[in-house]
């Protein structure tokens, strides 16, 4: 009973399409995490930044009747929240973990509160189709068997995420700016003495992580769900964080981790047909991640100065 269903599920384009979409949703905040941690700022607040992105994206889209404006607003909102994290952790040298937790808590409270104030509790309606981030169908390519469904019928943000993924990989490891970012994350003093503006770079990277998380929020709310729900990110930012570490702080690695996780998520719904308890199936992505962590990856080394506030020429 199990194996036929399993085979049918695993070979269906539908599963892989869903896996890639889940993965892309995780990938954006994960990329944000990568760039932030590479510059030496620990960011566990992707969850909150995403959630803010969801809410602001929907609210602004409704107000402006333009999805583009909504997406921009979501991105900016994520960036602003990240800026708070930046100020607190770079300038005020706060404990970055606490700051991250605080941002998550604040984002949850704020979005819930605003949602109630705005709708009186009824909840935001589904957005009209023209107020959504559209799914791109690549003409004849989309008609290809299997591959068409998996690769060429995805949301526009999916392709954007791929572009950002490749761009970020290139940026970090093939450009001068990337060299500087890595230098700042590994050894801020050295970077400073080489004339690199350490704080500026850290700010930029943290804000970038917020922008990406905000975009992920917009993707979730405007692309996938078409509405806002309280706490609709449901822990995704933390999974993205895990993907960052799991992916050894590289964009491609994180993408691999997100893919594993997305596959787990998509499988857990589809294997319910086999009669396995849905609760147990829901643990699948997490178990897959742990197994991958044990078996394939092993030790990951964070950038040397990750999480350490930089104090130029400090009083020791």
């Amino acid at each position, binding site marked *: 009973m199990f194996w036929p269903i399993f085979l*049918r*599920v695993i070979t*269906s384009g*539908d*599963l892989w399409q*869903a896996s890639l*979409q*889940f993965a892309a*949703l995780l990938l954006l905040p994960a990329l944000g995490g990568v760039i932030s941690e590479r510059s030496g700022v620990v960011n566990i607040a992707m969850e909150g930044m995403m959630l803010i992105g969801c809410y602001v994206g929907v609210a602004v889209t409704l107000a402006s009747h333009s999805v583009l404006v909504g997406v921009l607003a979501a991105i900016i909102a994520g960036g*602003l*929240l990240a*800026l*708070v994290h930046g*100020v*607190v952790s770079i*300038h*005020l040298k706060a404990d970055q973990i606490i700051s991250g937790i605080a941002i998550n808590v*604040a984002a949850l409270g*704020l979005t*819930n*509160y*605003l*949602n*109630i*104030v*705005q*709708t*009186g*509790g*009824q*909840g935001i*309606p*589904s957005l009209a*189709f023209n107020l959504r981030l559209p*799914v791109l169908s690549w003409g004849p390519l989309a008609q290809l068997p299997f591959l068409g469904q998996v690769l060429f019928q995805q949301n526009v943000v999916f392709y954007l995420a791929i572009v950002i993924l490749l761009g970020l990989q290139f940026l970090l490891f093939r450009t001068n700016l990337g060299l500087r970012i890595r230098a700042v994350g590994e050894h801020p003093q050295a970077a400073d003495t080489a004339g690199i503006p350490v*704080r500026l770079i850290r700010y930029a990277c943290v804000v970038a992580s917020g922008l990406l998380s905000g975009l992920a929020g917009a993707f*979730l709310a405007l692309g*996938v*769900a*078409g*509405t806002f*729900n*309280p*706490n*609709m*990110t*449901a822990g*995704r930012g933390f999974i993205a964080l895990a993907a960052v570490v799991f992916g050894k702080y590289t964009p491609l690695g994180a993408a691999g981790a997100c893919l594993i996780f997305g596959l787990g*998520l*998509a499988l857990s*719904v*589809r294997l*319910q*047909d086999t009669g396995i308890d*849905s*609760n147990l199936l*829901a643990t699948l992505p997490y178990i897959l991640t742990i197994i991958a962590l044990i078996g394939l990856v092993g030790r990951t080394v964070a950038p040397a100065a990750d999480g350490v506030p930089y*104090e*130029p*020429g400090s009083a020791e």
Partner: protein
Amino acid sequence: MRNGGIPARIVALLALFCVLLAACGGSNTGSSGGGSSTTPTAQTPISVALVTDIGGLNDRSFNHLAYVGYTKAMNEFHFTRQVIESKNQADYVKNLTLAARSADLVFAVGFLMQNAVDQVAHQFPTKKFAIIDGCAVPAGKQDCESLPNVAPLFFKEQEAGCLVGAIAAQMEVDGKTKISQLRGHNTIGAVGGLPIPPVTRYIAGYKFCAKKVDPSITVVINYSQDFAATDKCKDAALSQINQHNADIIFQVAGGCGVGALDAADQAGVFGIGVDADQNYLHPKSVITSALKKVDVAVYDTINDYAHGKFTNNPPRFDLAHDGVGYGTLSSVVPADAKSKADQLADQIRAGTLVVPENIPS
């Protein structure tokens, strides 16, 4: 501190708070919430409190509906708004206690509060309680305890599920020829949040009556394991549509389920809303909604109480008492589907048809 002058730090600090404040402040201009400005007038002043479960006020489900009924009554009877959103299961007893101390009638929303209501009701025998989806159950017992000050408000979700199931099945019977969007595989789906009783009762009725209309119909059921993550429900619905060719999806997952309706809309098939009338989400593709009139129940209970008619044995909110039903029908629903549902509804009201609580296999 080369880069960090003191002014910069203070500015940074201010910026931090400002971002938070700006967000709060901005919203207020939109629609000012808060009900504190209502001034109680004449009548015998009553005092009513509402305690939600962990879903919170905007759960797109029974908490929200309870609040709708509560607000309606509040505007009518001019009592002060007293609402507590529970953040934690451990909060139920204390939130009910707080509410009971300051109000005369306390609503507990959700079956998870059964034990807590029992305990608090014993402690405050002079206060009245009403619990939605449940009754007072002493810890360690299975059965309801009948207390003079507790009104259990039960709903027969399965009856609502039955009606929408009948509509869906009849549409399948009518088939592709009549309704072009259908895929012609005689398959309908249901996406639940978690397999918990209020959810499974809906699905039980849905499947039972669908099979009753068309024994050959296939009903696929999936759970998203979540009530909030909209995209998971959407994915579950999509997998039903894509893999099983289901063309009518019944969502029973609160806020998460909005995603299931969305999936149906996008895929060009149909969805069925739950609890509230969710036709507003997609007026075309949401063919109807399985209604659970929690708002009515709450309002009625307050109304009775205000007129001194509080009873610890309110009617069961079923079809016969108009406690459940189906919502706005979309234009695509053919007349025979509606009549099928109405026909079953009559049988249920008459007692000739009993809808099971558990999902038939």
